[in-house]
């Protein structure tokens, strides 16, 4: 085992890229988002790396580099650490890491970021090594204290023991001595057969606090002398303030100031209620010169027009045009998908306190470095003096992974306009949240397929027309391609010898963003509905037809499809009584997922009674969390597919401003869900998003069995 002295280690700080051996410097400064905080590392605390702290009171605090907004990283990643340390589950605590793009980077992205269902996948080895290093140092400390050979020491349930001498100690007892040990650079991790927690339903660390109102979110942060701020944003995307009259707003009791900022007109008050009331009394004139004044209908028409011409070819095999030309049967379809709002139940918000050149931010940021950077830049502060507390967030679904730091910039501008020291809480109302942009891109798919006389698919073409999420943002690498626009239409698991997938990139001032499962939100629908139709035209069964079409190396796709068919008792009869059954298979984020939906016709609206799901996400670290993410992911996808469109009306004004018009799936509409997880020894992959893509095509395919046609334009109910 390579070792390094603790001192060398600390000295080498910033550039160190060894997975586990991250220095103390920059570790969690604040437990604001902690589930059960132990406070700052005190006297005698052992902190072997940036992720683990062992306190003399025998608590083990795991510092989580990923934000918790419901997908379970606090629990899942703490499980890895606890398992490798052989800790007791009830001694584990979880705290949120502060913003530090070096220490707490997502190993897939190179900066601190949560997204793309990567929390488990990128942390899998890193957190296990973090736990293993801590364990090795505790063992070394015990060996030294007891004067015994480390090889004779065992660790179980948070107790370090030496059978030969009869000595034992808790982690807390050894914390101080462990801190003096060398830090192993590449600590050995367990064999899977040695796992004690990994693979079991460990209880979630945050369930209690989220059931009794004590979990602290951004909106729950209060600072002395804090002002509450709401901003009058434009009704139309891209409009800017031309002028405003604050006379009436300033008369509202509790309103302290009204100031223009680049994002709109900010109303400062002594309470949220007063700020909202003040905003209602404002009158603002808008400069529309850079605004998107087209309606969704006009944008859709322009996108459909653009779908007539070829775009950038992003995947090609054989000669699809010739194959379709010579086909016995040609099938064509065009699908349109609306803009969608993430509609996190906690709307966007942030708290910022500035005192004598230092600043502290509280926010549910998926890219905390970006938002911190916005505050640093806007206020001209020293980055070392700005602290970011990454808070629990009331949902994200991609919304808080801001490719431009929308909220960080807005709270910074609020502080800048106020000038000097102070504390401010920015609250977006639901109306701000719905009209604030950063939607799932409006998308058109145009597909063509050809069958030969035997029903084989000889040609496949899919043209995707939409805006780019990446290009023109802080993540733009200058590539003409942007896979987030069409992922899932490419690299399909099926044998399609003649295939062309091309992308027509559109421009609009409407900002777009990743929305739970990103490109897969529309590609899964377009490809799996279209394929289902082709298979039927070919006289093939929806399940067997897919199995026959799968590539040789698509074993994991095959396994989930076969399993789900067994679970649902699929027998080829798509309609039984008033119920119909539809299947869909779609891999996203390296997780394989197949669903079968049972659907009936409820007065012209699909009613989904039951969904069977088979999923393969590699080693199932916490099956309970995986099932929960499948349930939630498919519920999220189902509600949107059935009901949601974020529509720009005449002049570009957003029509759906709250839940009265942007309808949320409710408990009465949630199907029964049965999930099976395929046993696997592959490294874990993502689970936050893969449950979303297959539900809409599964429902549409069932609906087609019932009604003859699958919906071409989403949402299904309008």
């Amino acid at each position, binding site marked *: 085992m390579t070792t390094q002295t603790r001192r060398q280690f600390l000295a080498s700080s910033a550039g160190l890229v060894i997975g586990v051996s991250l220095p103390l410097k920059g570790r969690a400064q604040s437990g604001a988002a902690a589930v059960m905080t132990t406070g700052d590392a005190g006297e005698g605390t052992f902190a072997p790396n940036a992720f683990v702290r062992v306190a003399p009171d025998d608590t083990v605090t795991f510092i989580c580099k990923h934000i918790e907004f419901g997908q379970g990283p606090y629990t899942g990643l703490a499980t890895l650490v606890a398992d490798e340390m052989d800790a007791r589950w009830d001694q584990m605590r979880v705290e949120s890491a502060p913003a530090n793009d070096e220490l707490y980077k997502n190993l897939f992205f190179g900066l601190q970021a949560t997204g793309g269902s990567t929390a488990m996948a990128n942390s899998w080895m890193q957190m296990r090594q973090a736990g293993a290093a801590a364990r090795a140092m505790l063992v070394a400390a015990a060996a030294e204290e007891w004067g015994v050979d480390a090889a004779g020491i065992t660790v179980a349930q948070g107790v370090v023991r030496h059978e030969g001498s009869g000595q034992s100690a808790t982690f807390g007892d050894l914390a101080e001595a462990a801190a003096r040990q060398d830090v192993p650079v590449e600590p050995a991790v367990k064999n899977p057969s040695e796992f004690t927690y990994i693979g079991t339903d460990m209880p979630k660390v945050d*369930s209690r606090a989220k059931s009794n109102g004590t979990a602290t979110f951004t*909106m729950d942060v209060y600072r002395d002398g804090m002002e509450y701020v709401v901003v009058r944003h434009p009704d139309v995307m891209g409009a800017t303030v031309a002028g405003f009259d604050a006379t009436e707003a300033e008369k509202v009791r509790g309103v302290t100031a009204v100031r223009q900022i680049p994002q709109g007109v900010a109303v400062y008050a002594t309470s949220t209620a007063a700020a909202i009331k003040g905003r209602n009394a404002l009158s603002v004139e808008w400069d529309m010169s850079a605004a998107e004044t087209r309606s969704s209908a006009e944008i859709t028409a322009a996108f459909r027009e653009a779908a007539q011409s070829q775009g950038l070819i992003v995947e090609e095999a054989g000669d699809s045009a010739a194959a379709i030309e010579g086909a016995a049967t040609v099938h064509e379809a065009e699908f349109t998908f609306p803009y969608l709002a993430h509609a996190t139940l906690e709307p966007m918000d942030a708290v910022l306190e500035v005192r004598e050149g230092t600043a502290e931010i509280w926010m549910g940021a998926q890219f905390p470095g970006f938002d911190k950077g916005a505050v640093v830049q806007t206020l001209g502060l020293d980055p070392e003096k700005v602290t970011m507390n990454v808070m629990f967030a009331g949902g994200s679904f991609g919304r808080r992974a801001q490719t431009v730091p929308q909220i960080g910039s807005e709270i910074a501008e609020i502080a800048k306009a106020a000038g000097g020291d102070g504390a401010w809480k920015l609250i977006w109302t639901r109306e701000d949240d719905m009209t604030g942009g950063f939607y799932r891109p409006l998308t058109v798919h145009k597909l063509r397929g050809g069958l030969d006389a035997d029903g084989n698919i000889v040609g496949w073409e899919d043209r995707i027309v939409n805006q780019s999420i990446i290009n023109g943002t802080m993540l733009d690498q200058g590539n003409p391609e942007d896979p987030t626009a069409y992922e899932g239409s490419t690299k399909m698991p099926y044998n399609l010898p003649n295939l062309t997938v091309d992308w027509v990139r559109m421009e609009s001032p409407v900002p777009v963003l990743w929305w739970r499962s990103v490109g897969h939100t529309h590609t899964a629908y377009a490809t799996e509905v279209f394929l289902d139709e082709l298979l039927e035209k070919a006289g093939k069964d929806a399940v067997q037809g897919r199995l026959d079409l799968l590539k040789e190396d698509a074993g994991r796709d095959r396994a989930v499809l076969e399993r789900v068919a067994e679970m649902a008792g699929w027998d080829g009869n798509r309609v039984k009584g008033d119920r119909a059954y539809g299947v869909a298979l779609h891999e996203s984020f390296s997780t394989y997922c197949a669903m079968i939906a049972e659907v009936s016709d409820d007065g012209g609206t699909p009613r989904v009674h039951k969904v069977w799901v088979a999923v393969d996400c590699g080693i199932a670290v916490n099956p309970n969390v995986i099932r929960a993410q499948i349930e939630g992911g498919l519920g999220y996808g189902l509600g949107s597919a059935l009901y949601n469109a974020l529509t720009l009306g005449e002049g570009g004004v957003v029509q759906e401003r709250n839940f009265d018009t942007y309808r949320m799936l409710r*408990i009465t509409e949630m199907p029964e869900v049965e999930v099976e997880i395929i046993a696997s020894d592959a490294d874990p992959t993502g689970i936050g998003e893969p449950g979303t893509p297959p539900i809409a095509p599964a429902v549409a395919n069932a609906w087609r069995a019932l009604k003859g046609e699958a919906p071409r334009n989403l949402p299904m109910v309008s």
Partner: protein
Amino acid sequence: MATFTVNGKSVTLDVDDDTPLLWALRDELRLTGTKFGCGIAQCGACTVMLDGAPVRSCQTQVGTLDGAEITTIEGLDGPEAEAVQNAWTKIDVPQCGWCQSGQVMAATALLKDTPKPSDADIDNAMWGNVCRCATYVRIRAAIHDAADTLEG
């Protein structure tokens, strides 16, 4: 100016009569367990008990509350609340958690009225509480579990 009881304590608030109870609870009393989701009585995140019945605090004006008794998630107690919160934890209902104070309030009110609710009773009592994370499968299971616990 209104005087009413919150979690058993008398409070007098010097705020405009049309101030939503939600913001008074949060900003004046710092009872932050009650959440804001929509402001128009469409989501239930702000659910509190008013004289024992669940109401939307975002649409309840402080000026109407003279003499009323309000219970928030912080003051929720009794066997039903305990059974609900234990079931919520055991079944790991919450995901992001933002809706869950409201869900717990609504579920507790349901069990006080209907100790052994059917699925239809659950639908009736809970449909007004949105969960954007779609934890509905577990909400239903946890209510049944809590009912079983109460039955003993």
